[in-house]
């Protein structure tokens, strides 16, 4: 992956993570603030409810006290205690209830029998069961209780007062419907309140808002919450998700409303809509997403610019290095950048300059060495014929002192030797001349296998010479045509075969292999000779280097030159005492223009 790409990814990721972290932080703080506000609003509403609750209770207590203390009621009780017919007083409560604005007012006999019921006169004569069933003492404070009415059970806030009549206790039970308390509450926007009334027997119902209105609670999802409060007698809260086309969340606080004898006849439900919070969170999220997107885009642009500033010199260095790898040492990068990159570029330029200088010095020294080697080889090659020439000439000078007959014979032999050595000198000079006059290859589509087969056939006679025959083995695979000059390649292979035969004076085996790779064809020739040392392998293609007694050291140098002119490669691998293998790789005949 490119440095620029890495930088872009790193910058983008950093921005996204940063924006995400900030968003999360803001959301968390918003959530916390909302919850705090929600708690304050709920507490305020509950406090207001309790205030209204207490206020309603005080009014009920005041009303019931007023009735209980009235002369008429006292007279009624006394008359009843004196044995008056209770039927006469069946309508007694109605007037008091109206005067004191009480929804319920029952006058009960000592045994709990209803003497007069304002809200349900028809219940005359029956006993008020809930009143009788309670074992707890009669509370003086108002309390919640479910009251039976002709329409069913109703949750009411009641107050009980005892009126004594000749030693008998008559009871005055008065109260109001609890749902009158809720409308008095001023619920702020987003809050709603309702009371879940849970009678001892029968289904509960929701008091307060009109059914199906927006302020009414759907009972079913709240039942687990309500049941928890009813069973544990303690307040609790839960987040409820309301269904529908657009689900919405609401924190619902369930507060137990105490009743008679420790019962919980009702639960106050305060719902705080999370719509605003959710909307704000969505808004924060949207804005954060927008900021993140813009930041990432800007970051990409800026980081692309910065990365370009940073990576361009590095890329230039990489390209320069690649060019150096390709042999182009004359490379110079822009070192105008500041900082480490600039220092790196300067160092690179200094390095290339040093390498170029060292290479020139090396070439120069190699050239000197080559000249020295050439001089040594020339001296060696020329010294060999010159010594017989000197001896022969000295013999001729000495032969003038002997008889003419003998002189002639010596003369004849000497001239013959001189001519032979001069011919030898010509040969040596011709070889050096050939090396300097290496022709350019004429590339064409050539069948490598047929070239190899032709060479093997040519040397077949030499392979079978006695007493040290050489075995040849052909392992030729199907090889596509190569781009080569058949004559030059044939001469290279012949040279290699001759070297191999020389390397196996005791005979051996020569193996000819051809194979194809993706873009080239490979020829390998292996012998079973004495092998070469790594140092010998390294210097084997150096001109005028030879391991043979009578070699010029130009054969493999010429072979390397030919193969190189074919845009191929020649190499050698060898193991001492196991043999040597030459590898020639030639390009396939595909696009001749590429070789031009």
């Amino acid at each position, binding site marked *: 992956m490119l440095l620029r790409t890495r930088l872009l990814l790193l910058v983008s990721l950093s921005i996204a993570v940063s924006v995400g972290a900030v968003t999360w932080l803001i959301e968390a703080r918003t959530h916390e603030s909302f919850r705090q506000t929600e708690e304050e609003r709920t507490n305020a509403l509950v406090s207001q409810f309790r205030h209204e609750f207490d206020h309603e209770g005080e009014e009920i207590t005041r009303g019931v006290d007023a009735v209980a203390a009235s002369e008429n009621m006292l007279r009624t009780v006394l008359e009843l205690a004196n044995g008056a*017919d*209770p*039927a*006469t007083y*069946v*309508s007694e409560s109605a007037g008091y209830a109206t005067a004191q604005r009480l929804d319920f007012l029952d006058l009960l006999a000592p045994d709990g029998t209803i003497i007069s019921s304002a809200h*349900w*006169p*028809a*219940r*005359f*004569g*029956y006993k008020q069961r809930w009143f009788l069933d309670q074992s707890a003492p009669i509370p003086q404070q108002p309390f919640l209780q479910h009251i039976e009415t*002709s329409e069913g059970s109703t949750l009411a806030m009641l107050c009980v007062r005892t009126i004594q009549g000749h030693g008998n206790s008559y009871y005055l039970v008065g109260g109001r419907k609890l749902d009158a308390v809720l409308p008095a509450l001023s619920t702020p926007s987003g809050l709603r309140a309702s009371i879940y009334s849970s009678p001892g027997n029968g289904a509960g119902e929701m008091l307060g808002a009109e059914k199906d209105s927006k302020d009414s609670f759907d009972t079913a999802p709240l039942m687990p919450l309500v049941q928890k409060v009813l069973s544990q007698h303690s307040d609790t809260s839960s987040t409820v998700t309301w269904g529908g086309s657009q689900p919405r969340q609401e924190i619902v606080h369930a507060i137990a409303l105490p009743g008679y004898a420790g019962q919980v006849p009702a639960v106050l439900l305060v719902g705080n809509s999370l719509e605003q919070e959710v909307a704000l969170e969505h808004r924060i999220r949207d804005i954060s997403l927008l900021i993140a997107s813009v930041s990432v885009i800007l970051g990409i642009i800026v980081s692309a610019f910065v990365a370009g500033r940073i990576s361009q010199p590095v890329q230039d260095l990489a390209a320069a290095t690649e060019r150096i790898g390709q042999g182009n040492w004359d490379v110079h990068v822009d070192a105008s950048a500041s900082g480490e990159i600039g220092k790196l570029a300067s160092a690179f330029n200094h390095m290339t300059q040093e390498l170029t200088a060292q290479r020139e010095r090396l070439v120069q020294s190699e050239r000197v060495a080559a000249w020295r080697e050439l001089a040594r080889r020339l001296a060696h090659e020329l010294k060999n014929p010159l010594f017989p020439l000197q001896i022969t000439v000295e013999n001729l000078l000495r032969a003038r002192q002997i008889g003419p007959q003998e002189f002639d014979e010596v003369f004849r032999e000497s001239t013959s030797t001189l001519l032979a050595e001069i011919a030898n000198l010509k040969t040596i000079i011709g070889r050096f001349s050939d090396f300097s006059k290496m022709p350019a290859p004429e590339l064409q589509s050539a069948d490598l296998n047929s070239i190899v087969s032709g060479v093997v056939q040519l040397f077949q006679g030499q392979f079978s010479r006695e007493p040290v025959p050489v075995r040849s083995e052909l392992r030729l695979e199907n090889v596509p045509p190569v781009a080569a000059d058949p004559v030059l390649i044939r001469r290279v292979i012949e040279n290699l075969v001759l070297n191999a035969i020389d390397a196996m004076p005791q005979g051996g085996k020569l193996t000819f292999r051809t194979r194809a790779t993706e873009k080239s064809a490979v020829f390998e020739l292996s012998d079973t000779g004495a092998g070469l040392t790594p140092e010998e392998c390294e210097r084997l293609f150096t001109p005028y280097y030879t391991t043979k007694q009578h070699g010029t050291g130009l054969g493999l140098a010429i072979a390397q030159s030919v193969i190189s002119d074919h845009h191929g490669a020649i190499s050698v691998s060898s193991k001492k005492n196991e043999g040597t293998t030459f590898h020639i790789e030639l390009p396939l005949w595909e696009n001749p223009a590429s070789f031009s």
Partner: protein
Amino acid sequence: MRRTLLLLAVITNLLAASSACLAESRPRYGGSMRILLRHKVTSLDPLVESDDPATRDRIAGLMFETLTQIDSEGHARAKLASAWQAEAGNRVWVFTLRQASFHDHSEINSASVAASLRSVSPDWKITANSQQTFTIETPGPEPHLPELLALPRYAIIKRLPDGVILGTGPYTLAEWQTGEHVLLAANDDYWGGRPFPDSIDFRMGLSLREHLLERNLTLDHATEVGLDQLRPLEQAGQTVLLSRPADLLLVCFLDPGAKPRRAVDPRLREALSSAINRATINNVLLQRKGAPAGGLLPQWLTGWEFLFPASQDIERARRLRADAGTAQPLSLAYDSSDPVMKMVAERVAVDAREAGILVQTFGDLHSNSKSGQAALNADAILLRLTLGSLDATAALAELADELALPADTVSAIVKASHPEELVEIERSALADYRLIPVVRLPQALWLNSNVHEWQQLPNGEWRLDQLWVEGSR
């Protein structure tokens, strides 16, 4: 001089006061009666269905007369018919008309009477023997035909082509505002002599409570009063006329066939009947002004009502309720314009609850009319049925008509010649507990102290023949 003048003034005042006292002790012509009625009347025609036929009949009775009338002893007396005689085993009756005229001054005759009666009983064969005599031939023997003819529906009415109906009564229709106001003017040509008041002004849909609130009670001469208002009036020393406990409150299970209603288990109906504490309803809610009801006709009229049980048996009710198995709540409708009906209905529901029967009550303004009942979406209805006659047969026939009992029951009633037959008819009508008598209550009327000779029969029927108003002229 000043003393003499003062003495003369005192003497003059004493003389004026004594003459006024003498004058108030005897009937006087003139004046206008104002009567408040609790219910609204939408038609005065006795043959047109009404939400409150009793109120309608009270007004109509002053305009339209029947051939006979029932006296306070329950006997048939002459009215438009001066005489009658039964022939052929009480199947053929010959009536003789008295000299009377309709309010358009046309003479009443056999033909007009026959036309009027045929519109009520098409199966009667009515033959005009002469101008003043005619024969009614009934499909079967009807020994109590004269008593039946005293029922308001048999009033003799002359129906004009333009829809106007005319009677022969002591008052003629002067003004009519449907459901609001009726003004009746004295009929100067009335065969029985001109009534004393010049007119009677009926105001409908008003209550005594409203007039008390408006402080104009002294402007009224008579007002229908509910039982719930009796106590304060009595405590205030006001004149209140109370009839015998004649009006029957009964729970009537509506015919499931008339509307897509569910049939109520007979055991549940019987359980409801056993659960009702009729004594408490009478003693407490009606303040002992009424009477528990077990039969259709009152004990004071027939003497046989004690044969029908009226006491509460809550254990039996619970057993029957348990036998009936799962049952949906019963819905009981009542006339929402009557507070007593509401109280009784709620008490029935309370008693039923004690037996494990859930009864839901609800008020309806038109529950007394047959069309209103047909439209009701209720299992049962609490009805208030007036005692139409002081004759047992006629009263039972009227109840059967109002309760839409089967035709054979009605036929058996009119054919009954012995009380035992009426007992059996009543017993069979109550056998399936579709009709559950609850209580009887009286009709109450507040009278201004300046109203005289206001007569009320034991069943609450008004007799205003001798009515006069003090200080009218």
